[in-house]
């Protein structure tokens, strides 16, 4: 495993991503990752806020397209996230903070799926949200905040 990480670190692609004197390597990957975060978590928080009872006159069913945006953004960030890992595999693979961030995302994905099913089950009329769904939305929103903090702090480790 360790050899694999070292080989990855020393590969030409990893070295280029990490060290190339161009904004098109690491800086651009990082910026696209930030863009994906803004889209994914921005839309997720909108859904969470509504399910938590903010802006109760917004009908929930019509919010469905937000999930399409979220999944596109999720895959953008999966791809750019893999690139960011490739650029710095030795430190990322041994970092507890990185592991913590991945854990938060892995816990959050099924919650997001559950929230998606809830929203898809709603119609065009504004309705009150069940207590269980509220708790789910609150948990998911906080996991996203934790993910942003963990990801941002990774830059300082």
């Amino acid at each position, binding site marked *: 495993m360790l050899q694999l990480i070292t080989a990855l670190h020393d590969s030409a692609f990893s070295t280029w991503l990490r060290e190339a004197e161009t904004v098109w390597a690491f800086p651009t990957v990082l910026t696209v990752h930030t863009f994906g975060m803004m889209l994914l978590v921005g*839309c997720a928080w909108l859904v969470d806020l509504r399910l938590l009872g903010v802006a109760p006159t917004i009908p929930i069913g*019509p919010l469905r397209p937000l999930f399409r945006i979220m999944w596109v953004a999720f895959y953008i960030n999966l791809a750019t996230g893999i690139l960011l890992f490739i650029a710095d595999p030795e430190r990322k693979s041994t970092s507890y903070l990185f592991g913590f961030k991945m854990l938060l995302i892995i816990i959050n994905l099924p919650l997001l799926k559950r929230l998606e099913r809830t929203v898809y089950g709603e119609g065009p009329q504004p309705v009150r949200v069940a207590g269980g769904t509220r708790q789910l939305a609150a948990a998911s929103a906080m996991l996203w905040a934790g993910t942003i903090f963990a990801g941002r702090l990774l830059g300082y480790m």
Partner: protein
Amino acid sequence: MADLITPANLSHLHLLINHFPTVGLIIAFLLLVVSIVSDSDTMKQDTMKPTALGVLFGIAVMTLPVFTTGLAAEGAIEKMPGVSQPAMAAHEDAALLAFIVLELAGLAAWLGLWRWRRTHRVPPSLTFATFVLAAVSLGLMTVAANIGGAIRHPEILADPKAQVARSMFSVSSAGVAFFVNGPGHQWVWPTLESAHFVGMTIWFGVLLLANLRLMGWFAAIPYPALHRLLPWALLGFGVNEISGMMFYLATPKGYTTNVVFYWKLIFLLLAAADLLYLTVWPAAWKTEAGTVTHGRERAIGAVALASFVGVMYCGRMLPFLGNSF
């Protein structure tokens, strides 16, 4: 555009736009006073008061580049003969307090506008808060401007022997810098960065959905229902203004010498203008479920969303483009 960052230009820019928080604030304040004392209901509720609040919010936002070009001007002229460093520090600290109070006035004005759009009435408590905060910031701004004028014109000092005019009403920017960057405070900057990302994300989410609705998507949602989300955008704006100003005060030269930072400010002003548009635009408020929108709203939304991405791009790329850090 990088060629434009010369000492003469940066000082000139500050001298040009510093009239927003001084002259502009006087105008906004007078509009507010007239709308309060007027006995015409139309002026009170429909025309002048929302105008005064909107202008005040705009002045509060415009003061952000005024403050930041101030430190750029300082960096540009600090080595010139006859320029006193203590005089500039006194101006900066007085301006920082005036700026903080003006931002609070802008916050109260925005909340008043938001409530006005929903209920056709500005709550008296918000009118009062805006009036008091605007009056205090006007006083503080006058003091700050006076000290600033004396940097290059010591002849206007009341006591010419004093060399430097000081104000007891000030906030130490060196103190803020110490909090952010001082020894043992290594946790502050990363924490502020994380908060900055959270603020950006919530602001963007609200801005995205509200603009997309006005551009024709999410047609089943009545716009007034989305209007209820706007305070969350303002919350993100506030978190980011506070965290952003703390970065800036800690390492001003990392920003003022980088052209990307000025692009970020321009995009930021456009994004803030979009927030005002989403708050008060009459056609937006009338957008019910199923209402079709016009090309105008599409164009505004496209510019606003692109501007917000521009803010993010310039901020994230700041360490990589240009010469900061």
